[in-house]
Every structure is written in structure tokens, then in C-alpha cells.
């Protein structure tokens, strides 16, 4: 792990620990005898998480014919581990602001890129032989979180110079990070995810999204995020901070074992579900 990134993450007070609801849920999910109702009750005690979970399972993302009105129902339909991953997604969204303009990046654009990548990753996972759709949704949502951390620290880091440099030389932002900051946004994500003790699948999918071939155990998952990231950049869905489509690995696409004829359908589904998710995410209640 990059020591600079680790030290930086250590200094972040607000990101120190995940909300208690996540650790409680994680504990219950690891108990094979836990009934769905118990997990549902545990989540129901947290109003913000309950509201986000219900909005997610009732969105275009799932397209269930009837309204799912309780978390327990959501748990039985979506699954235990899958619910945990959605709780994680909801918790992290709560920790960061949705609006604002720190370090020259607009948060709204950042989250739009993250949401689009999350939706796209879930759709791609649904076409893969064996890939957890909710884990991919959460990994997609969190894949650039390191960048958000670096932007939040723009008072201590030369973020503006980094952005100017990438713009001036028309180079990829993530390739300049190591040179100018001493670490990349993937290093920051790795440090944060280790601190939070997240499952290795989520960690690898997010940390290796620019270099999926290097993922030690979850290569296919990292490839899924890599391809989603390319698609959402190409379709100009939100803004990761990088003005160009990152370098795409043909091998990553082949690793997914999805026929090319499915790509237009995947992109159509993304375009259909994306507006609903954006509305859900930015609507306050």
C-alpha cells in the first residue's frame, strides 16, 4: 500500500469509520442463522438508509412490478450480501456531500459519473456468467472515491495544479497523479477500503479499475468496472474530473465473455435507467 496515501487517509476524521448501521448489518449478514426480518429490522432503525434502500429497490434498476414497501421484503428479494452492499453504497453517499465545488470539481458531476458507472456495472454483471450485481453496483459507485478524497483535500494537495497540468498537456489526469501527488486515486481508495475493512471483491474491483489485469483475485470484477468507466466517459455521463476516456483494455472486455452484439443493448439499458437513478439520488426526502 502507498504509505503517503495511507497517512493521508489516517488524517481524515470524517471518513474514519463507516456508520454503525453498516457494521451491524455486516455482522448479521455473516451469521448464517440470521432471519431476513432481523436484518430488515436492523436497517429499519436507520431512517436515511431505509429510505435509500427502498428507493433503490423500487427504481428502474430492478424494475419490479409491485412496490416493495419494507426493508425485510427488499432483503428477501435482493439477498443478504446484496443488501449489505446497498447499505454500504447508501452509507458512503451520506458521508460525502452531494453538492459543492471543492477543488474546482463539481460534486454533482462527480456523483453523476459514479452513479452512471454503478448502473452500467450492474447491467454488465447481469450479462456475465457469475458476477454479483449489487457488489458491482457498489464498486462502480465507489470506484473513483479516491479522487473525491483528493479533491476534498485541495487545501493541502496541489489539486489545481494537477488539473491545470492535465488540461495544458492534454494528458490523462490519473497518469499525472503519481507524479504530482505521490499517489493515485486508486492508492487513496485502497487505503480507505482497508481502513473500512471492506470485502476484497469490492476493494479489488475499485482499486484496479485502470489496470484490471493486475487484480490478484477478482479480475473479472475489475474488468467490469474498467469497461463501465470507459462507457460512461464515452457517453459523457457526469464528470470524473478526467476530460478524456481512460485507456481502454480490449482484453478487459474479452474477459467479461459478453458477445459484442450485446453492447448496444447494455448501453440502451444504461440510458434508460440512468435518469431514474439520478432523480432518486438527488431528490431530498
Amino acid at each position, binding site marked *: 500500500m502507498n504509505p503517503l496515501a495511507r497517512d493521508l487517509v489516517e488524517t481524515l476524521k470524517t471518513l474514519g469509520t463507516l456508520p454503525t448501521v453498516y457494521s451491524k448489518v455486516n455482522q448479521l449478514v455473516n451469521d448464517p442463522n440470521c432471519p431476513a426480518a432481523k436484518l430488515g429490522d436492523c436497517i429499519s432503525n436507520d431512517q436515511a438508509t431505509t429510505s435509500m434502500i427502498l428507493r433503490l429497490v423500487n427504481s428502474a434498476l430492478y*424494475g419490479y412490478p409491485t412496490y416493495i414497501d419494507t426493508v425485510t421484503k427488499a432483503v428477501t428479494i435482493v439477498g443478504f450480501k446484496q443488501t449489505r452492499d446497498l447499505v454500504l453504497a447508501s452509507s458512503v453517499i451520506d458521508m460525502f456531500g452531494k453538492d459543492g465545488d471543492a477543488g474546482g470539481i463539481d460534486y454533482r458531476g462527480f456523483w453523476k459519473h459514479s452513479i*452512471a458507472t454503478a448502473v452500467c456495472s450492474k447491467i454488465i454483471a*447481469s450479462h456475465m456468467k457469475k458476477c454479483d450485481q449489487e457488489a458491482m453496483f457498489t464498486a462502480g459507485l465507489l470506484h473513483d472515491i479516491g479522487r473525491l478524497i483528493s479533491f476534498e483535500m485541495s487545501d493541502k494537495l496541489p489539486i489545481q495544479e494537477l488539473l491545470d497540468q492535465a488540461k495544458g498537456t*492534454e*494528458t*490523462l489526469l490519473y497518469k499525472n497523479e503519481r507524479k504530482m501527488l505521490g499517489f493515485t486515486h486508486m492508492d487513496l481508495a485502497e487505503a480507505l477500503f482497508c481502513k473500512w475493512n471492506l470485502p476484497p471483491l469490492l476493494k479489488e474491483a475499485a482499486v484496479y479499475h485502470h489496470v484490471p489485469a493486475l487484480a490478484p483475485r477478482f479480475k473479472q470484477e475489475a474488468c467490469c468496472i474498467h*469497461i463501465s468507466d*470507459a*462507457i460512461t*466517459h*464515452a*457517453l*459523457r*455521463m457526469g464528470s470524473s474530473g478526467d*476530460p*478524456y*476516456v*481512460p*485507456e*481502454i483494455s*480490449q482484453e478487459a*472486455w474479452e474477459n467479461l465473455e459478453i458477445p*459484442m*452484439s*450485446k*453492447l*448496444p*443493448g447494455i*448501453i*440502451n*439499458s444504461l*440510458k*434508460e435507467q*440512468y435518469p431514474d437513478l439520478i432523480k432518486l439520488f438527488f431528490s431530498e426526502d
Partner: protein
Amino acid sequence: MGIISVDKVQPGMVLAEKVLTAKNMMLLPEGVTITEGHMMTFRTWGIIEVNVVGEGDDDGDDALSEEEKAALEEEVRILFKHNNLSGEFTSKLFEIASTTVGSL
């Protein structure tokens, strides 16, 4: 023809390609006119999308003039400047991105 989500399927549309289940069992051959009953079958078998005649693909980009199309392609070319367009996936993605108007 084009691939559309089953939610967008309307009775009367014609299949441009046979519909297979995840295990490659054929549900319907190509050329069939879709009925309400078929739509129920799609849901039962968890079909996500089908290829129908005369849908998708162009996505309304016919409304663009030649200059607008060229400008759009140029914009997307800049977006892809760090990529080699010879890769199969990259070139297909570039093609789709070049017909998608504006940022989403």
C-alpha cells in the same frame, strides 16, 4: 433493427432475431409478431432485451445535419484521444458515442 429492453416491447413488434433463454433454449424464432402472451413469456423466463425490427440503432440521429454529425464525431474523437480506435470494443464504443448527442 435494434435491441430494446423488454419494458419497451409493444405487441405488434416483429422479432429481428430469435429469443433465447440464458441456457440457450429457443423461446421464439425470428420474424414472429409479438403478442401480450409473448411478453408474459419474456418476463417468466427473465429475458432482459430482444432484437426487434425497425427499433433502436439510429436513435433519432437522422435529425442531425451532416455538419452536426461531423462536429459530434470530432468532439468524440478528442474524447478518445488516448485510445487506439483499432480495438474491437473501443471502435464499437466510439461508434455508439459518436451518435449520442450531448452530455447525459
